């Protein structure tokens, strides 16, 4: 079971642009590789990542097999309001890995 991690400042001034770093351990099996018997290893990647602030989606990433294993993304949002930051990683196999952390805006 992959374990997602996120890092961002817990508190921010209103209007401040904050950096959000995310990471999840995942093979991102491309679907191009074969084992020694020539059998294609089935594709299994994190195909979508979403970040929402207070229930409103602020950033989305569609990922393809060209993204490295253990995909990490760094992006930026404006600290417009306090509320939970919800992160979702969607796996090819239908699993969803989620994480929620509060952001306090002063």
């Amino acid at each position: 079971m992959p374990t997602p991690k996120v890092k961002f400042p817990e508190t921010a001034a209103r209007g401040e642009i904050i950096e959000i770093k995310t990471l999840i351990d995942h093979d991102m099996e491309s679907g191009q590789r074969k084992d020694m018997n020539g059998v294609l290893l089935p594709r299994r990647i994190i195909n979508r990542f979403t970040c929402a602030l207070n229930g409103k989606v602020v950033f989305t990433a569609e990922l393809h097999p060209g993204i490295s294993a253990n995909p990490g993304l760094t992006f930026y949002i404006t600290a417009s309001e306090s509320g939970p930051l919800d992160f979702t990683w969607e796996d090819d196999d239908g699993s969803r890995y989620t994480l929620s952390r509060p952001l306090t805006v002063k």
Partner: protein
Amino acid sequence: MPSPQSPRRRALILALPAAGCALALAPGAALASRAEADEAALRLTGGARPKDGKVRLKLPEIADSGATVPFTVSVDHPMAPDNYVKAIHVLAHDNPAPQVASFHFTPTGKAEVSGRLRLARSQEVRAVALLSDGSAWETRREVKVTVGGCGG
């Protein structure tokens, strides 16, 4: 004399090389032509032909391993509610699948994302940005993937 490695162990070793490298070795994997990549870019921008400029793509000139190539892509543009960067698409023309990632923004923060991508071989990487006014902008960077970095 029997091999010291069991077939099982060999299978494991074969499965180990990083996927980005295996891409280069996969026989019969179709490589996208430049024309196909241009077409893919046009589809992503909804038909707007990308102009050169505004987009910055940071990549190493030489990547030791094609499996993990760090990138940062940004667009020199405001993120105001009525005027912002809607999306950035990253394409690697000579990968088996040229589309690497698409990032969708809302008018918040800044139009910048960092991550790590796979390159099957030395090639040009392209970033295409779509703005809220419908215009599209792009930039390209050449990355050399070190020979032998794939263990091949």
